[in-house]
């Protein structure tokens, strides 16, 4: 009994440690532009995990779980994928008119168990969990984590198909179109957990360009009873939007990069 309690505490400590380290570093997709016109359109996107926004100074984001979705909902194949020391990059030709979504969705599992009197720990992609964690291990503790990192870009007129929620995990509700954001205007967004409003969760909105100012200028907002919140964008620039929530006992994190244009 005492042992189990210690083990549980250890696993909580581990979870907190991992959660904290994940929080300190910020994952993001940074597009070359979010608004496109004309007939020869390509977007190039940087993908990285960093301390400050939006600088390449920590580690590149892995692109194994990248999905590119065209305005009609079809899946595109990103081109020129590269992972360097600090960032990954990929390009997509925007052949269709409308709004595109790029998303990196990671599902991971953390587990601890006892083997021959020793505590074993494992953390990795959810897909490998069954293979790596002995199903009948003693004192097995398992917890899941999911992470969804998104960015939207629009060629021509903004469309809404890629904004439709799937009803799974932590998802953004974009009442204001994410490619129609202007300085001095308020944007209304929300969050869903498994398709239901995520009430009273904390949302962080942080502008990029940290190197050129002392003040973080970060906003901490709360979703209302309907899971909605309003962001007063006062200045133009790239913003990092993040929220975390509990989804079926697992920790889920959502990130979107938003571009706010000057009037």
């Amino acid at each position: 009994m005492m042992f189990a309690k210690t083990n549980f505490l250890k696993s909580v400590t581990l979870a907190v440690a991992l959660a904290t380290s994940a929080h300190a570093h910020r994952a993001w997709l940074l597009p070359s532009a979010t608004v496109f016109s004309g007939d020869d359109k390509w977007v190039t996107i940087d993908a990285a995990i960093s301390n400050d926004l939006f600088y390449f100074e920590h580690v590149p984001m892995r692109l194994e779980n990248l999905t590119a979705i065209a305005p009609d909902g079809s899946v595109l194949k990103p081109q020129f994928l590269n992972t360097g020391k600090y960032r990954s990059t990929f390009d997509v030709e925007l052949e269709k008119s409308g709004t595109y979504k790029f998303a990196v969705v990671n599902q991971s599992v953390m587990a601890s168990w006892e083997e021959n009197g020793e505590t074993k720990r494992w953390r990795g992609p959810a897909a490998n969990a069954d293979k790596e964690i002995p199903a009948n291990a003693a004192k097995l503790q398992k917890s899941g984590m999911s992470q969804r990192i998104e960015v939207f870009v629009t060629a021509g007129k903004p469309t809404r198909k890629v904004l439709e929620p799937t009803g799974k995990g932590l998802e953004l509700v974009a009442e204001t179109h994410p490619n129609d954001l202007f300085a001095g205007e308020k944007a209304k967004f929300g969050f869903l957990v498994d398709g239901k409003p995520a009430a009273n969760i904390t949302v962080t909105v942080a502008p990029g360009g940290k190197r050129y100012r002392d003040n973080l200028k970060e906003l901490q907002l709360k979703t209302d009873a309907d899971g909605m919140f309003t962001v007063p964008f006062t200045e133009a620039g790239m913003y990092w939007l993040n929220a975390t929530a509990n989804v079926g006992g697992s920790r889920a994190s959502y990130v979107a990069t938003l571009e706010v244009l000057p009037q």
Partner: protein
Amino acid sequence: MNSKKLVAVSLPAAAAAMAADLNVSLEIPKMNVAEYHRPYVAMWIEKPDQSFVQNVAVWYDVRPKGRKSGTTWLKDLRQWWRKSGRELTMPVDGVSGATRAAGSHTLSFAGAKTLAPGSYEFVIEAAREVGGRELLRVPFEWPAKRGGNNSQSAQGTTELGAVKVTVTP
């Protein structure tokens, strides 16, 4: 003395041509820069609450070297792009045309005849490749009050010079 006479002679004819019209004169400033491209210019009509009413003109690079068209940079006219451009397929008959050289330009907006009586703003936005962007608003009443002040101006400071909107009764 001579010029006064000239004006007196030419005025009746000009007034007839401009009957119940919206006339715009604008200046594209000369730039002393190493790399100069003619600006993209969009002009449109808004209501005082800044809701879009109607396009007047869009000047863009219709045939740039090595490209099918210069529509790639239309989004740099970012207010116009948001208000109207992104809804359109270029070119638009009677609205779009080639970029203009630095200097003074005038145009008469025949489409004003379809405007409902009321207060409006004439909006002009200019964006130049490797240059800046500027947007000006000139309020006007449609139709013009007979004998009233029917001419209003705005002065640009960077990408636009003087812009004058004249509504003739």
